[in-house]
């Protein structure tokens, strides 16, 4: 029997699961090697677990979802979180430092109709996660590699070094050193292809922290480029605001 793949969605923009459908060249091959039995965005087919691999997109933001993720964990032999929402709570984790009732009242006329948690939290706050793919959105190459690795029974290789290394390999001019554009590349996990510096702008951290990010040193480099600490704090409090390394670094600055 073929291994089975299930895709689940929590609070998110759907972009990471869409990346599966964006893997056009590989999509039919993947579907041939692994049985996609649950993937609401793509198929009416819906089969109960257990599943060999579960991919989870999105963050936990409602009491119902906090229960649902536990049920899903129980059904998946291997659970993989995909993207910034699932791994760090996403941009919607900006609510965590705010008053969610006030937020709800700003957007909705009748906030009492809503049933939401005060926080947006990563999947790993709720259940054990076996592997994580980072990024907003995830890299299609990393996604295809992950599925391939799991099918082959090898450990997926998910790099944790900073964007700078990829940027140097790509041959881009350093935007922080040369034109003096604030860039989070030195503290951000690689995987995107170092696209922002290649487009003449600073990295905005959508893959979250690299391993052992040295934010204090980055603050000095930003100051040398004429950009103050408050700006760095705000830059860290964005697409992966819920990542502990960024949250703590922002507090420490």
């Amino acid at each position, binding site marked *: 029997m073929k291994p089975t793949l299930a895709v689940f969605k*929590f*609070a*998110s*923009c*759907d*972009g*990471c699961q*869409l*990346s599966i*459908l*964006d893997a*056009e*060249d590989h*999509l*039919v091959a993947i*579907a041939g090697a692994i049985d996609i039995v649950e*993937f*609401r*965005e*793509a*198929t*009416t*087919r*819906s089969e109960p677990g257990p599943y060999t691999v579960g991919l989870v997109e999105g963050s936990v*933001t*409602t009491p119902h*979802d906090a229960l649902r993720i536990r049920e899903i964990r129980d059904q998946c032999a291997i659970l993989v979180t995909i993207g910034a929402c699932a791994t760090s709570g*996403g*941009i*919607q984790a*900006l*609510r965590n430092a*705010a008053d*969610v009732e*006030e*937020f*709800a009242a*700003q*957007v*909705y*006329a*009748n906030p009492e*109709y*809503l049933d*939401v948690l005060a926080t*947006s939290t990563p999947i790993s706050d709720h259940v054990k996660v076996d592997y994580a793919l980072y990024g*907003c*959105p995830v890299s*299609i190459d990393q996604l295809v590699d992950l599925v391939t690795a799991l099918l082959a029974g090898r450990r997926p290789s998910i790099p944790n070094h900073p964007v700078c290394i990829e940027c140097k390999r790509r041959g881009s001019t350093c935007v922080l050193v040369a034109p003096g554009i604030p860039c989070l590349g030195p503290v951000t996990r690689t995987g*995107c*292809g170092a*696209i*922002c510096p*290649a*487009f*003449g*702008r600073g990295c*905005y951290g959508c893959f979250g922290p690299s391993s052992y990010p040295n934010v204090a040193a980055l603050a000095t480099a930003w100051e040398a480029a004429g950009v103050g600490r408050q700006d760095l704090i*705000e830059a860290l409090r*964005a697409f992966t605001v819920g990542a502990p390394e960024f949250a703590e670094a922002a507090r420490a600055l």
Partner: protein
Amino acid sequence: MPSDIRRIGVDYISRVEGEGCLRVAVRDGEVTEYDFGIFEPPRFFEAFMRGRRFTEAPDITARICGICPVAYQMSSVQAMESVCGVTVDPEIDDLRRLLYCGEWIESHVLHMYLLHAPDFLGYESGIALAADFPDEVGRGLRLKQTGNAIVAALGGREIHPVSVRVGGFHRVPTRKELEPLIPRLEQARDDALATVEWVAALPMPEADRDDEYVALVSDDEYAILKGRIRSTRGIDVGVEQWNDLFVEEHVARSTALHSRIKERGLYQVGPMARFNLSEELLRPVALDAAHRVGLAAPCTNPFRSIVVRAVETVHAVDLALDLLDRYRRPERPAVPVTPVAGTGHGASEAPRGMLYHRYEIDAEGRVLDAQIVPPTAQNQGSIEADLLHLVERNLELADADLQHLLEQSIRNYDPCISCSTHFLRLEVDRG
């Protein structure tokens, strides 16, 4: 439950980006109760945009929807440029159109081939469809890839591209970088024309229903990037008058706000609205393709939206080719934008329909207030009206068949529920 009642329950509708539910009670052949709801955990974008810098709007609001991030970027930058009194260079507008064409192609093709066509042919998914229709689905994937390639060439990646900024782009490509797209788009034009023929031949349920169609309209182009708000019943105003015309309501059954025309009611945005208002402005190759398969305005059968999407794909491919043919690298990637305190409006045509943004910012460029009205929220009333219309006319169908028809009907709108919220749970309670 009384013995004369039957129930059909659908907890989630697949192949839409989201979750919702529909409950219908039927007594003696009459629909007596009706409840359509959308459940997507709210993410509060409009609330956390407050206090952010005006320059962050395109990157942050793109995250509302992974299917149409360019639409969010385009509506937000135009809103911010309007607050600050900035007009971008015409070459930059053309590059924005090209980027938007890429998104229209990939979004429309994703929906037609992988999400919607399976309904018409009785398959559970595009992947399952590929087993029996490998050439057709292969053509769709190739076409979608070309749309993605445009977005990636201009923006670095397919989803949440990184090049767009208030005032223009962070970087504009050289002509040489874009030239490899030309042969791919020539292939794509053939593929898109073949798609029109293919979808027009699908078995089409009858479901014509009169509606007020609303879209951006321009005098000299089939509006994608900008235009005035017009309707098939006489509305003709600038986008800054959005709040004078429409009102958003919050109902208990939904986390999406419903939009209505004040003192008039529901309306519809999207491909059929654009087509019904601007048919004659389609590129000739797209207009010919439409007429060849018997599609002409007014199109009022929502199931035929798949044909309109195919025609719009031809238009987007042909427009992209034209923009590429004429492309010369702009002298500057962006105009400088200094924040000015005030309120600005921006609207563009997302693949699913008109997307409106309004921001109030202060003199430092901090966002004081944000309003974002996605197309799916505007279409919710029409989706409900279609469902009711279909239930009333198809009560003789078995539960499973009725459910299938209703799900397909919802997918007519290509609902990107993430942008507003999430999708469908069906319970038909029959007398």
